């Protein structure tokens, strides 16, 4: 970098500004900002340098031999790569970095599509097994006695003939044996398996179970009364109207969504968003999902265990939503247990017993109707607010070791001690409600009309699932991808 150039400071300011904007307004994503505006950095950089040189020239000072040093070009090329990568990432999968590679792949050749078709009798078969390393699979049911598959394989290759050779190595198989129908795309037989993928549209009889294994690709399954088992390194999963049990084990995922499942749901692994709605069976989630987690209408006990939080309850006629360090829930039937390192908890209309133990986070409780559930709340650092229904009989003890204490409810009295205090009910009848914080305010008040129905899910109700794009009518050759020449061109230019 040239001494005295204003460009580098400008770029630092721009970068700082972007990160600051991101911090102040978390809904702005740095990645989407950079992926959108990084070419502007190059333009700005070049223009500023040109301006500087013109200025130097007009002042009559000695001009540099070249306007940009090798180091600057190196930085620019590096920036281009990062920018292009982010652009691809945004374009192909705004939600998940796993698809970064897709853009990279397109550097090498063009996509060639080949149609796939197959069927096998499903008489006597109870299970469909899909073995497709890469690509999406959509499964629907119909009154049929055979499994029907259509779809396409996409091969990325430099030439038509190379693509054909690769495709020919991967025989598409739909076979029926030993009570199961097996769909295999045999992608492992093609070298460099990153360069092939197969999208499948599958129709199965209504009672068939589905087991799918893959490395990368979405699964969309609707309408079967059988069980579902999905194992993948990276997948979005959407399930609807499933009669059997669901097992999902993913190493990475942008979304898992299951609606109207009669059986049990078991989810392991990791991912971003998770939505479960109208589940009749038990729900067990031992997984780490970092995005929005949304449960609605679960008829049986549910348990969620991640590295940070453990949550369980007996039944959920309402909803529970976990997102961005917050748990909001309404109409939850206990026993409810919530343990977490950091989480704000807001619960309304809960019944039976409630136990909350968090290290850091505020707790806001609105039990709703009388009698109030037996409640034990403990937070090490955070405020607690309890809005009790009028005339509730309870044995209350609310305390803080250090913080404001406030009570606006008949039949309770405040004792201040040191820097904290205690609120106790005059009578010790009724369910025990014990809330305590080491550090933070405690408020006990009567519920007001405005408390009812204030917490609503701020997620849109029951998003329509977005199915993976249906395979387009297969064409033999579809050179659609942009073959991006590496931005090494300017490097060569500079060397001359």
């Amino acid at each position, binding site marked *: 970098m040239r001494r005295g150039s204003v460009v580098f400071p400008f770029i630092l300011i721009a970068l700082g500004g972007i990160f600051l904007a991101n911090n102040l307004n978390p809904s702005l994503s740095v990645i989407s900002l950079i992926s959108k505006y990084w070419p502007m950095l*190059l333009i700005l950089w*070049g223009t500023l340098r040109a301006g500087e040189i013109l200025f130097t*020239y007009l002042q*009559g000072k000695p001009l540099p031999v070249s306007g940009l040093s090798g180091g600057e070009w190196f930085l620019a090329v590096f920036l281009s790569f990062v920018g292009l990568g982010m652009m691809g990432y945004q374009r192909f999968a705004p939600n998940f970095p796993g698809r970064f590679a897709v853009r990279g792949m397109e550097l090498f050749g063009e996509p060639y599509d080949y149609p796939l078709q197959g069927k096998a009798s499903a008489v006597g078969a109870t299970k469909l097994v899909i073995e497709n390393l890469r690509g999406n699979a959509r499964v629907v049911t119909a009154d049929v006695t055979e499994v029907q598959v259509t779809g396409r394989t996409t091969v990325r290759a430099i030439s038509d003939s190379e693509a054909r050779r690769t495709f020919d190595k991967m025989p598409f198989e739909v076979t029926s044996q030993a009570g199961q129908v097996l769909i295999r795309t045999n992608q492992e037989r093609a070298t460099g398996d990153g360069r092939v993928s197969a999208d499948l549209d599958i129709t199965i009889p209504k009672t068939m179970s589905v087991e799918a294994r893959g490395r990368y690709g979405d699964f969309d399954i609707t309408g079967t009364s059988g069980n579902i088992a999905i194992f993948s390194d990276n997948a979005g999963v959407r399930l609807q109207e499933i009669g059997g049990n669901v097992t999902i084990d993913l190493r990475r995922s942008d979304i898992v969504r299951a609606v109207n499942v009669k059986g049990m749901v078991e989810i392991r692994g990791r991912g971003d968003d998770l939505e479960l709605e109208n589940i009749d069976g038990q729900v067990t989630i031992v997984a780490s999902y970092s995005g929005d987690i949304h449960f609605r209408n679960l008829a049986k006990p549910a348990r969620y265990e991640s590295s940070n939080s453990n949550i369980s309850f007996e039944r959920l006629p309402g909803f529970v939503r976990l997102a961005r360090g917050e748990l909001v829930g309404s109409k939850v039937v206990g026993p409810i247990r919530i343990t977490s390192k950091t989480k704000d908890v807001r619960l309304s209309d809960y019944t039976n017993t409630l136990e909350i133990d968090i290290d850091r986070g505020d707790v806001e409780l609105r039990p709703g109707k009388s009698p109030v559930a037996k409640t034990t709340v403990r937070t090490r650092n955070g405020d607690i607010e309890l809005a009790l229904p009028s005339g509730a009989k309870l044995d209350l003890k609310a305390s803080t070791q250090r913080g404001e204490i406030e009570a606006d409810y008949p039949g309770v009295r405040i004792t201040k001690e040191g820097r904290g205090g205690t609120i106790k009910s005059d009578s010790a009848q009724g369910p025990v409600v014990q809330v305590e914080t080491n550090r933070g305010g405690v408020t006990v008040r009567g519920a007001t009309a405005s408390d009812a129905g204030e917490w609503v899910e701020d997620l849109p109700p029951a998003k329509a699932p977005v199915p993976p794009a249906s395979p387009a009518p297969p064409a033999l050759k579809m050179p659609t991808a942009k073959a991006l020449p590496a931005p090494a061109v300017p490097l060569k230019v500079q060397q001359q």
Partner: protein
Amino acid sequence: MNNSLSALARALRGPVMMATLGGLFAIDQGGGFSFSSTWPVLIIVFGLMKLAEAGLPKAPAANQGGM
């Protein structure tokens, strides 16, 4: 000072290429022509800059910028 227009063109080459490159990516990004079809513009711009360098007077311009 020994600044000629030719030297100016040479010094401007890098920055102009850089801005062009950014512009092409911005067009690609904005949904216009893709970079895979517009990259020859870089060669053309480079050629034009070289041409300017060769065609403009090499001697220090007496009437330009001299102190």
